[in-house]
């Protein structure tokens, strides 16, 4: 196994871990807000969050490139103030990946929070507990199966990304070259052995993650809240 192979797997793994961690931190408050807010434009925001599920990855990739471009507003501002270029860098891919995997984190968490009876939250309030205490002590511990599903699904989905990473990151070894792109690349160069190895690893990792989700959900069916 050569260095480039390990390096590609490392980038793939790093991207998935970072994307999942960032999404977990921002996903919980967003899911909570979606579950309880009565904001009139909520359907619009829900649609926006779910867009990556229906849009071709190339569309997202294209818009991300437009935003990142140093000739446009945000890209120029980042370059001027922070000397930061996002197009064809790991950071750029990471941001695109967070946006692209957003619905896979939010949906399970949102469903989990919504499925809790309102009375749990209200009981905590009547017992004198603030919204913050209720959020950490009552809501989060009672949606553990949804949290596991959300994390596994986001991780698996990030590993499986192709279009967005290719558009935004290109195929730069050690920086933005991930396993899914490497497979395509190796097949183009007729290196079937390496392509095969990448494919098996991706297949196994995704299989293990999805099996985890389904076994957690099966256990959850027997575990009733009330």
């Amino acid at each position, binding site marked *: 196994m050569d260095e480039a192979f390990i390096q590609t797997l490392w980038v793939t793994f790093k991207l998935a871990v970072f994307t999942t961690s960032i999404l977990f931190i921002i996903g919980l408050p967003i899911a909570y807000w979606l579950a309880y807010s009565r904001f009139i434009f909520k359907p619009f925001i829900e649609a926006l969050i779910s867009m990556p599920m229906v849009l071709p990855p190339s569309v997202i990739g294209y818009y991300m490139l437009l935003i990142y471009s140093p000739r446009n507003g945000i890209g120029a501002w980042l370059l001027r103030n922070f000397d930061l270029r996002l197009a064809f860098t790991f950071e750029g891919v990471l941001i695109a990946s967070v946006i692209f995997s957003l619905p896979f984190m939010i949906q399970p968490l949102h469903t989990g929070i919504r499925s809790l009876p309102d*009375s749990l939250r209200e009981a905590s309030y*009547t017992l*004198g507990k603030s919204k913050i205490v209720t959020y950490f002590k009552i809501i989060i*511990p009672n949606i553990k199966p949804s949290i596991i599903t959300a994390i596994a699904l986001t991780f698996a989905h990030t590993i499986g990304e192709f279009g967005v990473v290719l558009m935004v990151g290109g195929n730069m070894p050690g920086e933005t070259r991930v396993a899914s792109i490497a497979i395509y690349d190796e097949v183009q160069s007729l290196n079937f052995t390496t392509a095969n190895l990448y494919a098996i690893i991706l297949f196994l990792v995704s299989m293990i993650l999805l099996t985890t989700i389904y076994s957690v959900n099966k256990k959850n069916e027997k575990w009733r809240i*009330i």
Partner: protein
Amino acid sequence: MEDNIIFLDIEKMMLTSNGKRNLIIRAEVKTGELLALYGSSGAGKTTLLRILAGLTKPDKGLIQMGKTIWFDSAKKINLMPQKRSIGFMFQDFALFPNMTVSENIRFAQNDKNNNHVAALLEAFGLSEFKNHKTTNLSGGQKQRVALARALASKPKLLLLDEPLSAIDAEMRAKLQDEIAQAHKILSATTIMVSHDLNEVFRLATKVLCIENGTVKKAGTPEEVFSENSISGKVQICGQIVRIEKQDIVNIITIISGNNQITKVIAFENDIEKLQVGDQVIVFTKAFNPMIVKVFS
């Protein structure tokens, strides 16, 4: 005892299955009273309880607890549920599935006091389940945990939403004792939603009959459920559960306050206006009753 008379005068538009309905309630509850909110479903009992807890906001009006204003639409005051010092027992009990029985009770305390938790576990016969998760408990046990939890923060007002609706008759009688005990332990005002006449008679010191969003009658259970209170007679208030026709007479079975079954003979013309489910009063004139000692 602290003087904590509850005064409320509120209006709230409710969305019921029969369309919109305005809940207009004006009432006063004295300290230490056990008030039952009685009425058919959809009448607004639970909404009223939620308004008192601060979980539902009235459209306008005033709620005052002693000298504290809980809600005043004119002054735009709406005290959060957290600040009202209440214990609320939900219909589904709302026990926290991630916590054990004793953790549920401890969660409710503001100043952690293990002796108080142990005393509550003991009082409600929960000591042996204290380390069990609440999901595996029976309905009766869940209710006891919910009651103990509602009392744990020593609230000034205890609110019970149809506490015994999901429990069979035998267990119900036992749990009614526990509510009475809870009321005694706390010696605080208790307001209970109920559409079970037995429960109202057994527990309540006062009843508000709510119909179509307004108070139709108020008073002691006897006053409310008997049309004309005459003194000097033996009377049983209850609900007709069966009317049997036998030859020339009819036997009416009535279930009353203490889950007691009373059978009364009635003639054809007596039963004309009666049907199963009616609330009735069975009485006898002063010279009829006989007394036998059953327990000393």
